[in-house]
């Protein structure tokens, strides 16, 4: 049944009397392009009055036909959107059936799915209904109902709507476990071209607001949460101190301050908390001082789009600009801190012409400046026929997305920097080889690494050794001399690692430490590449051509 109603002076076609199942179909279909279906980051035990708990590692409840994890009930509150973002299925100029949930319907679905163990919680996103404020209000209303009336104690991830009133964003943060604001596209230019109703400032400001709220609820109100992401911990470990020692040092420093100084410190906690490690390195510390602040390097290099974005990231007011980040009194039933599982963001890869180097630099800056838990990348799927959108020959750039995630892991867990992995001369990842192998064959002067003596972070730089196996090696070598067989048992991928390591001074096989030789060997054993990129007659010289072909050629297979 259709019905023409006039809302805010606009004529809107409504589809009435949709069943809850039809709404679920439409609004989950509309939400499927959102990534970040994770339920991790907060440990919360169940209790006698509420239903639910939360596990820090997160739990995957199913895997969809595309192989992506289903952990949360991922839906839009509404697809009645006033914005006209060119990449989005729900852009206002598209002719699709529009509908909205009521807060009560969202609660019913969440509770009933949850008690059947279908899901870990709710992921609530939304199109912009009427105004950003109205939409945010509906989201807050839903979360309040879920937490207070239905006593839901499971995981909630919700989007902060750019442009909504800060107090509404804050209300949502008290009820939710994780908040996210979509960066949408890596650069401001891209955003202007494809999402004319959105602007960078409206995205970065709520991000900062959430970051400050998390810190303030932990430091000032002494609430739980506010635990740092992997990026922060890795950078901290890289300073050469254990996390425990560093925390003790911080606590001692903090105790020694006078009350006025403490207050000041809290205000300047940009310095205290975020990216302290990065700051130190910038001040002329260790590793590579010239690369520790990517935006300086980029500005002189002519990549103005990214440079401008990074500058914006840098310029978004830090906590000192707010007299106080939190102003709303936390609701009574909230026993945890503000957004205790932190915040994340996502951007679309391949809709705009940014290079991998630009994307990964933006991600690095976000990790440093906004303490994000995760940055998600989503391969562009061309759902709308719009002249402003690129036509990618092989479908969504899945392999490129895969490489972005691999690089993201290298930033967060392995202590790599964006500037080490790529440079303005070589701005894109080698599609044929993962970023770590690619880095290693370009830095053969650092290899081979001796397993019995190399420290943790040096081991981590060896292809085929990850955080787990590196940790096991460090433990196991205390009590035994490790040989290659033992390494295999510890989880080291020898087919990759064997070119880069020695055990007690010996390599596994007689091997040439020579770039082309190792590349050829690695490509024979590497992950399976899409058919058109495979072939036995490749040599490295031929392969390098593909670096210039762009990423549209990479299709299928790996996600």
């Amino acid at each position: 049944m259709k019905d023409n109603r006039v809302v805010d002076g606009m004529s809107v076609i409504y589809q009435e009397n949709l069943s809850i199942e039809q709404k679920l179909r439409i609004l989950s279909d509309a939400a499927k392009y959102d990534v970040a279906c994770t339920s991790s980051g907060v440990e919360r035990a169940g209790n006698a009055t509420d239903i639910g708990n939360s596990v820090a590692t997160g739990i995957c409840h199913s895997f969809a036909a595309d192989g992506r994890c289903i952990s949360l009930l991922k839906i839009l509150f509404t697809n009645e959107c006033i914005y006209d973002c060119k990449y989005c299925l729900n852009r206002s100029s598209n002719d699709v059936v529009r509908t909205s949930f009521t807060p009560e319907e969202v609660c019913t679905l969440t509770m009933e799915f949850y008690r059947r163990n279908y899901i870990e919680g709710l992921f609530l996103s939304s199109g912009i209904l009427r105004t950003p404020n109205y939409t945010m209000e509906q989201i807050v209303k839903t979360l309040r109902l879920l937490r207070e009336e239905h006593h839901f104690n499971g995981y909630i991830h919700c989007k902060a709507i750019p442009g909504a009133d800060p107090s509404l964003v804050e209300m949502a943060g008290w009820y939710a476990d994780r908040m996210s604001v979509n960066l949408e596209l890596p650069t401001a230019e891209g955003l202007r071209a494809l999402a004319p109703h959105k602007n960078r400032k409206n995205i970065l400001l709520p991000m900062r607001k959430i970051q400050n709220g998390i810190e303030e609820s932990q430091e000032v109100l002494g609430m739980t949460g506010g635990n740092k992401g992997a990026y922060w911990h890795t950078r901290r470990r890289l300073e050469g101190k254990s996390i425990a020692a560093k925390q003790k040092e911080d606590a001692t420093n903090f105790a020694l301050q006078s009350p006025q100084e403490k207050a000041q410190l809290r205000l300047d906690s940009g310095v205290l908390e975020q990216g302290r490690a990065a700051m130190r390195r910038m001040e002329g510390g260790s590793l590579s001082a010239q690369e520790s602040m990517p935006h300086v390097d980029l500005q002189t290099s002519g990549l103005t789009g990214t440079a401008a974005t990074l500058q914006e990231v840098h310029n978004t007011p830090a906590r000192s600009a707010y007299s106080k980040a939190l102003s709303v009194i936390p609701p009574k039933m909230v026993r945890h801190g503000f957004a205790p599982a932190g915040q994340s963001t996502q951007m679309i890869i391949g809709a705009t012409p940014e290079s991998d180097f630009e994307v990964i630099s933006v991600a690095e800056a976000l990790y440093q400046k906004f303490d994000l838990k995760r940055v998600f990348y989503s391969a562009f799927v061309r759902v709308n026929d719009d002249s402003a959108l690129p036509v990618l020959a092989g479908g969504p750039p899945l392999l490129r997305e895969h490489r972005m995630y691999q690089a993201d892991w290298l930033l967060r867990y392995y202590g790599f920097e964006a500037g080490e992995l790529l440079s303005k001369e070589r701005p894109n990842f080698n599609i044929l080889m993962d970023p770590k192998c690619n880095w290693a064959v370009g830095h053969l002067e650092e290899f081979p690494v001796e397993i019995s003596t190399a420290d943790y972070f040096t081991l981590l730089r060896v292809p085929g050794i990850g955080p787990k196996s590196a940790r096991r090696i460090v433990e196991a070598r205390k009590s035994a001399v490790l040989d290659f067989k033992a390494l295999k048992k510890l989880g080291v991928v020898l087919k990759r690692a064997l070119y880069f390591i020695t055990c007690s001074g010996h390599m596994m096989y007689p091997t040439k430490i020579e770039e082309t030789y190792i590349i050829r060997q690695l490509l024979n054993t590497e992950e399976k590449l899409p058919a058109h990129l495979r072939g036995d007659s490749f040599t490295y010289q031929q392969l390098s051509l593909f670096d210039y072909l762009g990423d549209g050629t990479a299709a299928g297979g790996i996600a």
Partner: protein
Amino acid sequence: MQTELENAVSKPIRVYQCENSIEGILSGIYQAWSKAYGHKYIRLSVPDLEESANLEFFCEYFEVTPIPEQAEKVAGTIRNRISVKVYETMIHALLSNRPDKADAVYHMLVGAFRYGESILEHLAEPAVQAVFEMNRYVGNEAHLYNGFLRFEESVNGVMLARFQPINDLLEVVTPHFENRFSRENFIIYDTGRQKAAFHRAGYPFVVREVTEAEMQQFMHCSERELQFQQFWQTFFETIAIAERENPKLQRNMMPLHYRKYMTEFKKRGEKNR
């Protein structure tokens, strides 16, 4: 090598055959250990998990009768004299379905009494390696079932979940659901081992052996239940992006044997299986 062979001939290996239960294996450890025969010449086996029942030359076989007091003594000694972490690792390993589990735990414990908790880091040691692998497998499978288990509301209002894990996970996964659904009446039913954990709202759960016929009464779902199952199937279909379809990845992340009782792989509207 030669001396080992000579020793083997001069002093036969003693094989203790244990019942496939924590109590049985801990009793086996007690009985084997208490003879002071020499750890090198001791082997523990779990005949129930072995594919063939071949006996070997130069071995003496002993059948272990489970004795609760002995098992409790071993457990207490490990908790008090070594550490709770070693104890928990051992218990997880004993829930595995590998036939060498009892032997690996025995020889890991030999090291544990010498090195304490740090024995768990001696990953180059074959017994420690085996215990580590079993512990990891049990932990991983339990973690997957925390997500893959599906509850169905029966007509009498009880939530029933069926599963058929490879390792003996019932006691490992139930505490998670007890904590999560403290207000629910639920049953988790291991259809392979024919036992179930019963949880009544507000009470600690109990585990006991059950029969298929006994569980039938909980397997009829209500109309409301079928409706939500259908909602979930709808969601499961629409949330996948067609352009990215990748059944191989899906199978990697969620192997087929896990899907046996999962709602999303049930035929639409089907009441029972």
